[in-house]
């Protein structure tokens, strides 16, 4: 653990984190300029940035909990890197456990420096496929999509919307039929109801500003429902 929490480790992890942060800022500046060029109002773009920041705070807390769990086993800095760059709160614990098992250990406390380095490699490489595909194929994939979209006006919105509905068709049963997690089911139901109410209020009041925060409000109501369900089940 002394290696995992060393100053060297901090510096080596801080480089990719700083890089990802720089990438986000660079792309945002680039998009802002393009937004102005195509006639988007600065207020509108500021609203998008503000609502996205507010929306992201709550899911970031979930990431923080994953970070806390991983820190106990892999030190402070590597989990911080994994959850800030490329990684996902959902998969990192799984990847770390696969690595641990490969080295024949049952507990992270038994981990040797060789196993720690091996686990770092496994976690880093294991989730690299999507960025690699992006670097190699995204340009041609995007070109193909744009070609298909240009032939029929309005088709892009339909296709991407339909694709998302397909994703949702898997996400919903995964959460709604998971009877081992009743608070999760309540979270789905109540956040959906709250979202419907928010959309109704937004339409009645014609308030775009309210719309900016409706998802955050509905999400928090869903979380409160999960907490309440858990308390009532006890």
């Amino acid at each position, binding site marked *: 653990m002394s290696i995992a929490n060393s100053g060297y480790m901090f510096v080596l992890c801080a480089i990719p984190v700083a890089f990802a942060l720089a990438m986000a800022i660079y792309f945002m500046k680039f998009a802002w300029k393009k937004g102005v060029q195509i006639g988007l109002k600065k207020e509108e773009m500021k609203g998008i940035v503000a609502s996205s920041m507010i929306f992201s705070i709550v899911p970031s807390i979930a*990431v923080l909990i994953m970070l806390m769990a991983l820190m106990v086993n892999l030190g402070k800095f590597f989990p911080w890197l994994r*959850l800030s760059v490329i990684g996902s709160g959902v998969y990192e614990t799984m990847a770390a456990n696969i*690595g641990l098992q490969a080295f024949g250990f049952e507990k992270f406390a038994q981990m040797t420096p060789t196993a720690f380095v091996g686990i770092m490699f*496994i976690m880093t490489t294991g989730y690299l496929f999507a960025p690699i595909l992006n670097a190699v194929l995204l340009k041609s994939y995007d070109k193909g999509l*744009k070609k298909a979209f240009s032939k029929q006006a309005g088709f892009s919105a339909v296709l991407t919307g339909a694709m998302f509905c397909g994703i*949702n068709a898997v996400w919903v049963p995964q959460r709604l039929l998971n009877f081992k997690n009743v608070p999760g089911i309540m979270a789905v139901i109540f956040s959906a109801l709250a979202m419907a109410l928010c959309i109704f209020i937004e339409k009645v009041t014609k308030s775009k500003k309210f719309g900016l925060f409706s*998802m955050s409000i509905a999400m928090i109501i869903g979380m409160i429902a999960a907490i309440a369900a858990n308390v009532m089940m006890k």
Partner: protein
Amino acid sequence: MNTNEVNTAAAGASGSDEYITKIHKYGRIFTIAAIITMFFPFIGISLIYGIKIDWGLTLQGLLNCIMVFWVIGCVEFVTYTPILGPGASYLVFITGNLTNMKVPCALTALDLADAESGTDKADVVAILATGASSIVSVVVCIVGMVAISALMPVLSNPVLAPGFSNIVPAIVGCLLVMWGFKLPKVLVPMTILGVIVCEVVGFTLFNGKSSYFTLAFVILSALWGYFLFKKGKIGPAAKKK
């Protein structure tokens, strides 16, 4: 084409090729550089502390990992990139946390801005949303790393824990309604079909092999959407009716 459409098309096409070329150029550069920097801790720590790498066991573990995660990566690439657009795709696949944060965030922003996927406007909106989201998640992680001992009592509070562990279900509920309003003719039958398939194959299999089911449902849903679009039931033709 009416005046409004002409203006929109002109705004979207203005410098579009140059913009997209730059997005791909810098997207690729940043992606490749980020992948390289991700290996710094692994290489640096092995060199600094002289730790010998056991390639046999490492590759064995990697193989197990690849079997699970590369399928997920492939599905995420195929399904998320058309929704997010190229700029945001480069960004989110580097900053991570797609399902639980970046994708819902981008979808909400696109909905609020009334931006149609595939246009420059959608690309701009998605970049701004996911960029802002990335900054927040990185900053929260920095705060968490520095102040973990102070935050521990709150984050591990047994009363609050079910709320924190059910953020994704809460997001799913929100998106279900949001898209239910936008594309009910696609979302409702697909969601019902998803529930039926889950009941038939069993929750364990459905949950365990969700990447494969996601890919199948995305293809099916796209085909169903195309069918309805061709029939004039959804899309611009349906709005005119």
